[in-house]
């Protein structure tokens, strides 16, 4: 055990020991003065009190009584203080452990105040109050995100309807793709917000059904953009544990990404593997190896271009991570291939 100048132990010892010294000195001086006044010093053979004898007495008092006693008391203080403090602070260990476990996850954690010494309670209370304020802020932010995403739905819906009313043209096709991406982004923000709420949990989902539905929903967009699109499940059912809506949205995002970057020709393929994988491939220019790591970072884009938010792939990764899954860019000779791997559900 080291006594650092900032430790509580050091501060206690540092103040207690001199204080004890002063009290002890005063105490003994008072006693000797009382004894002298009472004539106790002159009793010894009637010799009067000389300066020499007084100094001798003082020496005796300080050297023989005060200093050894003070030494003993210092030793006792040094031993006792850490023990007392350790006992008193033991209850803080729990609080520290709790504080340790607080992360950016769901709010609501507070430090336990029971057992904490009175002197330290104000600190713990203040800390809990601060946590409360942070939680409020977090909730406000989450609510804002949800409200904003909800609010976006109506204008996106209006946009979509207006675009659909336009005469057929390649411009209309592209605008419809953009509005679909916009819609998917808003939905993914809502997904993440929903998944980060306490009480959201995973259920048994069929990846084949998810892949089929997404392919079916996006086939018109893909075909209008000039692609052929296909769905290739390796088997009839592949069960994983997850949240169906957000997984479907993640795959939707990958297909939309393929539609945007696949070069407007060739095949977009959605494949489901029996080992819990969903792969979305296109036959476009592909993704250079040096970009494959960074492509999932928010706002990363292969080339600066006005379209796309640069947030889509990041949201896909966030959703896959929530599922304890992985997403990777496969090393393909042509085109880009994204693979989501999810833990399989037990008992299949």
């Amino acid at each position, binding site marked *: 055990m080291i006594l650092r100048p900032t430790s509580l132990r050091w501060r206690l010892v540092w103040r207690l020991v001199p204080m004890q010294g002063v009290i002890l000195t005063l105490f003994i001086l008072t006693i000797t003065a009382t004894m002298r006044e009472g004539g106790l010093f002159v009793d010894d053979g009637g010799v009067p009190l000389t300066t020499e004898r007084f100094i001798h007495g003082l020496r005796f008092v300080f050297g023989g009584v005060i200093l050894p006693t003070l030494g003993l008391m210092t030793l006792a203080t040094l031993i006792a203080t850490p023990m007392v403090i350790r006992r008193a602070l033991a209850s803080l260990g729990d609080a520290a452990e709790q504080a340790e476990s607080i992360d950016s996850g769901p709010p609501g954690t507070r430090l336990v105040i029971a057992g904490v010494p009175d002197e330290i309670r104000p600190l713990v209370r203040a800390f809990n109050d601060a946590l409360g304020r942070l939680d409020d802020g977090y909730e406000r932010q989450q609510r804002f995100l949800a409200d904003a995403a*909800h*609010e976006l*739905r*109506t*204008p*996106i*819906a*209006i*946009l*979509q*309807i*207006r675009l*659909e*009313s336009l005469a*057929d043209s390649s411009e209309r096709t592209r605008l419809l793709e953009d*509005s679909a991406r916009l*819609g998917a982004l808003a939905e993914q923000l809502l997904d993440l917000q*929903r998944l980060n709420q306490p009480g959201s949990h995973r259920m048994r989902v069929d990846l084949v059904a998810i892949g*089929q539905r997404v*392919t*079916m*929903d996006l*086939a*018109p967009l893909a*075909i*209008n953009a000039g692609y*052929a*699109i*296909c*769905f*290739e*499940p390796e088997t009839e059912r592949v069960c994983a544990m997850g949240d169906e*809506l957000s997984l479907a949205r993640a795959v939707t995002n990958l297909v939309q990404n393929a539609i945007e970057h696949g070069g407007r020709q060739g095949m977009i393929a959605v494949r489901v593997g029996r080992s819990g994988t969903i792969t979305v491939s296109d036959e476009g220019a592909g993704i250079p190896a040096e970009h494959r790591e960074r492509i999932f970072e928010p706002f990363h884009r292969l080339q600066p271009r006005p379209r796309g938010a640069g947030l889509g792939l990041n949201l896909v990764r966030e959703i896959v991570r929530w599922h304890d899954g992985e997403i990777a860019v496969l090393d393909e000779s042509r085109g880009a291939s994204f693979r989501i791997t999810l833990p399989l559900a037990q008992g299949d």
Partner: protein
Amino acid sequence: MRLLLIEDEPEMAAALASALGSFDILVDHAPTLSQAEAALASSVHDAILLDRQMPDGDGLDLIPKLRSKGIGLPIIVLTARGDTDDRVAGLNKGADDYLAKPFAVEELLARLRAVLRRPGQLVATTLRVGRLSFDCSHRSASVDGALLDLPRRELLVLETLIQRMGRTVLRAALEESVYNFDDEIQSNALDAHVSRLRRKLAEADAGVEIHGIRGIGYLLKRASK
């Protein structure tokens, strides 16, 4: 066909009315629930499109009210909320279908056709894509007024595809509409029907395309220029 659109957002109502207008669907707009009830008293509508967030209450609360008055019109709920719980709540209240915003107009049309096709709601409609017309009540197809001579199963395929035009139709749904339970379906029989139909439509210059989506089904859309 005439619809009552119950929707508080004027922009949304205007966009939807004009989009549906191009499909010969007349849209009356009610910006509040009370105006909707008044409009429904005239009983000229074929179906209701209902938004949930209305200034004078939750749109869903209107459904039991209408049903208790004996108004059995099909109701499709359109909502910006669209969570799964929300959807279940809507259907539990007696809505016929539920569509989350944003949605494709073609999707809305397909859902409308589906709810109108239910017993008691038979409505004759002619569907048009490109230069092709399909008369649902007589189940006949024509290009620029000239009747196409198609065998029954090809007509059934075309009917199913055209009712969801612009959207994907699952292979299973097509097979279901073409074959009876006791028909023995050969694995490539449907593909054969589709490819014959595709060829005939091209020969008649119908201005439509049928796209195959491997592993999913088919899609019929207007031919791109």
